[in-house]
């Protein structure tokens, strides 16, 4: 039970929902394909979202993540395949009959209604009485930390406040699955980072009842908030995993390159990936077995860290990040042209395309 502003938000009244399978995934897509004319937006997509988790679909624009969200919401019918929510098939069900609510990228607040009427819209449609509507809307606004703006119009609010109203309007209905389509995309960096933490806190509060499915192209956002991340590219799912798995054990070069910076190197006929911050620049005179020799070509001082580009003996360009723990801008900038040795732990080198490799072996 979640409380906010002293009032309890109860399960929605109105239409009785059919019995659900408690063990079923919150969202299950099976073989979903969606095309717009000749353009294939998603191709043979199968994935499962677990109940209560914060699941992020991450990918560049045009990768199919938003289309997938719209197929789950019911705005776009899938060409083929099956959509299930908590074990109920909803493939052909219209949006207004699905137990999901959406936070839109442009917020989609009704401009001619007050904040209260916006937030209470879903309740009004369900036939909840006026007083109860107002109480639940106030509770939802308190939960998104925006109390006392009920009487205002959306146009009188800032971008961040509108974003919170859009969130309140969705969660007040207690959807089983909350879909968020790049909700922080229009906010400036500082506000976005604040909202990421708040959104995560709200999700933790609601996780017993609501599953979050989040779309973003921002890898930091995905790593900050998600329990699991699905990486999309060209209408296909590249990898699904925890932020740690995605970052430390990317399955291919696309995932390695899209999430964070990576060095992809050839070692013993296999392609391996090492993250820049896992590589150690050895002190002058220090040596280690298997260390790579090279010359510092570029130095960029970034405040908290310094980024080096080292050209190895094999001609590879290797990016190295080093904390500016016991050095200064003046000193690191003198390191250009220096001969260095690089070292990393074997477990930090992740073999790419290993599925393919295993199949070939």
């Amino acid at each position, binding site marked *: 039970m979640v409380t906010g502003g002293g009032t309890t938000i109860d399960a929605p009244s109105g239409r009785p929902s059919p019995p659900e399978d408690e063990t079923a995934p919150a969202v299950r897509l099976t073989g979903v394909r969606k095309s717009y004319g000749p353009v294939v937006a998603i191709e043979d997509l199968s994935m499962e979202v677990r109940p209560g988790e914060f699941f992020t679909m991450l990918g560049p624009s045009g990768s199919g993540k938003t289309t997938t969200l719209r197929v789950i*919401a*019911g*705005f776009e019918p899938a060409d083929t395949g099956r959509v299930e929510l908590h074990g109920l098939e909803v493939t052909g069900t*219209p*949006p*207004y009959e699905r137990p*999901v*609510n*959406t936070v*839109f*990228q*442009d917020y*989609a*607040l*009704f*401009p*001619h209604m007050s904040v209260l009427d916006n937030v209470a*819209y*879903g309740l009004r*449609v*369900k036939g909840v009485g006026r007083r109860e509507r107002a109480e639940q809307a106030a509770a939802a606004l308190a939960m998104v930390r925006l109390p006392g703006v009920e009487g205002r119009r959306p146009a009188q609010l800032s971008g961040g406040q509108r974003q919170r109203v859009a969130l309140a*309007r969705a969660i007040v*209905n207690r959807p089983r699955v909350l879909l968020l389509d790049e909700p922080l995309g229009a906010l400036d960096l500082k506000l976005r980072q604040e909202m990421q933490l708040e959104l995560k806190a709200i999700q933790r509060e609601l996780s017993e009842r609501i599953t979050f499915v989040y779309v973003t192209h921002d890898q930091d956002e995905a790593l900050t908030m998600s329990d699991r991340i699905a990486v999309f590219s060209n209408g296909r799912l590249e990898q699904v995993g925890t932020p740690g798995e995605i970052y430390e054990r990317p399955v291919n070069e696309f995932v390695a390159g899209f999430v964070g910076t990576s060095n992809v190197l050839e070692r013993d006929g296999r392609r391996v990936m090492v993250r820049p911050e896992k590589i150690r620049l050895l002190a002058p005179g220090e040596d280690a077995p298997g260390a790579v020799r090279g010359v510092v070509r570029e130095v960029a001082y970034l405040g908290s860290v310094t980024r080096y580009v080292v050209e190895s003996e094999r001609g590879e360009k290797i990016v190295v990040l080093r904390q500016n723990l016991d050095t200064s801008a003046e000193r690191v900038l003198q390191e250009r042209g220096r001969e260095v040795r690089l070292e990393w732990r074997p477990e930090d080198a992740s073999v790419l395309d290993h599925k393919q490799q295993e199949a070939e072996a």
Partner: protein
Amino acid sequence: MASSIAASRTPRARVSAALFRRPWLRAVLLLSAPGAWFVLIYLAALALLFVSALWKVDPLSGKLIHSWTLQNFEELVNEPVYRTIALRTIGIAAAATLTDVLLAVPFAFFAVRVASKRMQGVLFVAVLIPLWSSYLVRVFAWRLILAKNGILNSFLGGLGLGSVNIGYSNTAMWIVFSYIWLPFMILPVWSSLERVPDSLIEASADLGARGWRTFRTVIFPLILPGIAAGSIFTFALTLGDFITPTLVGGAGSTMIGNVVYSNVGIANNVPFAAAFAVVPLIVMGLYLLLARRLGAFEAL
């Protein structure tokens, strides 16, 4: 340094720089011509209308008497026939406006939300084509359609449905006005519908609302300014029209425009014509106030 740059410029560049530094001067230059037009032609004519409505005509000599009197307005209020004509005019205007709303909203909705881009272009041209031909020709065409032995009745007769007798009647005027002004309703409704983002309609469905509810609570309030704009055209144009009543109206179809026309032309009583012409202005003013009261412009 700045003076040397300015000195090296051509006169044209200096003028444009001077204008750049004085935004008010640019505004004055931009608005002077339309402003003069507006004040001299538009407001002056309107003022003259109000002033002459307070004059009268000597019944014997037919000459204008430039003294203030409310006699014209008293006559309008006290003569039952003028009250009937005014109410008929307002009634026909209201009926045509309502009919055009009922036709334009579904049409524009189909064009904006359902039709393909190609189809949209075809529909847009289809709306505009009637405006390329003469108003008179189109009203005459309806005269041929609605006459007793006209196209409509020969069509109904061919189907074995008998015939209707609506030529030269108020019904004919209602049909013709609704037809003639329909593009003026469709275009503003069309453009107001285009400004409603898809995401609002999706959000409404997402929050559980079916189509009709979404239309009532989201789409309709947002296109109401467009409907209001269209209705200003349909209503005001009907209030002032005298051609359609002349051509397709019958014995009991006299409208304000006809009275104005006959007082200016035949009876030579310009003050009375002016007084009667003030009535549509007052009606329009009241109509706009009512529309604002009902929130028609809130979504603007």
